[in-house]
């Protein structure tokens, strides 16, 4: 069984009865290995489709939790439980509970710091006072407004008020939280989460290849969520200064949010500012300020100084890229694709109206970027399978389009691996209109392939 990954959270959804030795059948050694290698900041096992479990049944997942956390410091736990299941898990593991339990997946996402849903008003209660405090601190750090009920009666009283809170938290237990340099995307800004002591280890834990390729794909705003950073030493200072210099070559901006300099020399801040890093007190100061976001580059990519050219290595693999794309779109739309022409030049989009686009980068043995330009109606059709119904909500369509392009990326990765070419893929980026795409692709040569799906024109562009 493999985890489904969305918004930086990997989730397993076993079904039926978890008892005896059966759960080891859910997770093979390869499954655990693959989970440990996921670039996520939370791994959950949802029990919403489980009607019965015992301790033996949960043990295989708990063992997986330990391995995953040891490998990548992700937060791990169970979710989607009712009071009976919650009490049963606490009883099974008593003082040995080193994972989290979240009543719902939605509650878990509040602790995964998904800034799409930030600033939620949250009522919380736990019998355990230290749990109440720990939850409140985490929620506050993640940009929410927690209200703690000090007693069950107070909780019930407050919870009964209609629409007073966005989320009500009970039957939730926080185990050890993750310490990973986590990555997530909001709009078109990439947010990295750093915590505790920033020292020479940052060079190992920060995925520099991923960062560089995000730059190449067109991301221009990188925010370090540093609320939980205690201090920084000279090695980390050098690391971030170098990161800022390389970002400058792409006209990209690096910001730190919530960094406290009580235990870090103030001169460090000056040095970082000199290298181009900006500091903000609150995440909202950036994310809620549309003008500032635009200025910092999160609304569109700026021109790249060192443009790269496509090379033979990539062009040789073109059929794999086309196959992956065509197969995915055909699968999602149940239509047949016809290739019209393939040429090498700058991207040419004849009609720009009613089109949306998405891009995904790949890096490793070869590197580059795939751009897909969809007529809006094809994108809607293609996303229907994922959404489950027709929708005109463009934000939802763009979100689903990102998932779709992720599927294309996954398929490209698989096809290339068949030829012993190993690549990783970046997070997908979406463009609500062609103008924002053209700002990224300006001056980039690539292979443009025009395709038609049941007479709807679709454009594939492969560049570096």
């Amino acid at each position: 069984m493999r985890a489904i990954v969305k918004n930086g959270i990997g989730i397993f959804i076993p079904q039926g009865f978890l008892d005896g030795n059966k759960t080891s059948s859910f997770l093979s050694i390869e499954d655990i290995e693959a989970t440990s290698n996921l670039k996520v900041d939370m791994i959950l096992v949802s029990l919403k489709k489980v009607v019965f479990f015992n301790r033996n049944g949960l043990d295989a997942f708990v063992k997986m939790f330990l391995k995953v956390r040891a490998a990548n410091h992700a937060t791990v736990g169970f979710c989607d439980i009712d009071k009976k299941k919650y009490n049963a898990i606490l009883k099974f593991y008593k003082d040995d509970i080193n994972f989290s339990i979240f009543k719902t997946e939605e509650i878990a996402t509040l602790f995964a710091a998904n800034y799409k849903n930030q600033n939620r008003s949250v009522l919380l209660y736990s019998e355990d006072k230290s749990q109440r405090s720990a939850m409140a601190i985490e929620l506050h750090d993640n940009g929410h407004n927690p209200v703690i009920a000090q007693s069950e009666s107070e909780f019930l009283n407050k919870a009964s008020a209609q629409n007073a809170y966005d989320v009500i938290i009970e039957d939730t237990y926080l185990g050890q939280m993750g310490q990973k340099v986590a990555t997530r995307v909001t709009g078109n800004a990439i947010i990295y989460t750093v915590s505790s002591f920033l020292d020479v280890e940052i060079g190992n834990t920060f995925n520099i290849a991923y960062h560089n390729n995000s730059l190449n794909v067109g991301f221009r705003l990188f925010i370090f969520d540093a609320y939980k950073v205690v201090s920084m030493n000279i090695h980390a200072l050098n690391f971030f200064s170098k990161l800022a210099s390389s970002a400058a070559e792409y006209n990209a901006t690096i910001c730190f949010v919530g960094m406290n300099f009580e235990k870090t020399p103030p001169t460090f801040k000056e040095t970082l500012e000199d290298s181009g890093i900006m500091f903000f007190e609150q995440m909202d100061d950036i994310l809620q300020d549309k003008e500032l976001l635009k200025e910092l580059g999160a609304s569109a990519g700026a021109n790249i100084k060192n443009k790269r050219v496509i090379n033979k290595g990539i062009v040789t693999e073109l059929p794999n890229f086309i196959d992956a794309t065509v197969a995915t779109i055909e699968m999602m739309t149940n239509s047949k694709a016809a290739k019209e022409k393939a040429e090498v030049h700058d991207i040419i989009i004849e009609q720009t109206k009613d089109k949306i686009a998405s891009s995904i980068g790949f890096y490793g043995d070869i590197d580059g970027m795939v751009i897909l330009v969809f007529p809006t109606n094809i994108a809607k059709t293609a996303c229907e399978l994922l959404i489950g119904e027709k929708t005109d909500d463009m934000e939802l369509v763009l979100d689903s389009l990102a998932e779709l392009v992720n599927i294309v990326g996954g398929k490209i990765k698989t096809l290339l691996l068949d030829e012993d070419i190993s690549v990783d893929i970046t997070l997908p980026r979406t463009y609500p209109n062609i103008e924002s795409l053209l700002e990224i692709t300006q001056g980039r040569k690539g292979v443009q392939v025009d395709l038609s799906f049941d007479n709807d024109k679709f454009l594939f562009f492969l560049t570096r």
Partner: protein
Amino acid sequence: MITTQKINNYIDKIPPAPLALKKTIFLLNKGELIQAAKAAQSDLALKAYLKNLVNKAVYGFKNEVSDISQIFGILGVSGSQQAVYNYMISLLSPSKWQLFKLNASSFENLQANLSKKWQMILAHLEIKDKDIESAITLLPASIIVSEALFCEKIEDVNILRTAKALDYNTILQRLCNKDLFDICEQISIKWEMPSKIAQIVQASSGVKPSENEEIDKLGKWMHLLLFYELSQAQNIEAGLNDFIDFQVEYIGDIYEAFSTLMDIA
């Protein structure tokens, strides 16, 4: 990926039930066990299947049973009809499974376990109806149909399922507006199975509750029984645990009775 045309082609390719089987079922319906056994004798594959089936541990016979008339005598009319329908469904199974890690033997085990436990459930519910008893035989057809439709698209489905928790039934419904259980119903019509069988199996999908109270109740028991079986280690390893979506709310009111009956601690 999967089109309505592909589904139609699949249904068209299903052969009509062999004559010997039709005759056996016809005679079983009339309660003529000896004549039915004679008709079944002429189909060697059926004979071998029945022998193999009733000698599985789940049936609990101490000595090997090999004679068809003896088998029918032990199973009775309804049990014999159930066994013959199980054989008919097994005719649809592929020679080599690709999507699910199954083989002829493990599929037969699944059929036998479902059938035996369904009999327990019907005894608990005090229902004596051979068509209802045979309804369980159509359920594994949904697994065969998934295998047939998706086996060439394993990679696509796997990649799709890394992004979204979609079961095969939902994927098919969204792509073709027709699901696995609709196809099972088509099979039952083609094979002239009693309509009650398809109605119960449709309800057992968990997403199409029946307006008929009795059918709906049986649908709930069958849905939960299916997931009880799909939670067994060999079926989890076969990749069957999430081939359709388990509707926990649907079975809420029968769970306690089920767990008592199945002796779930």
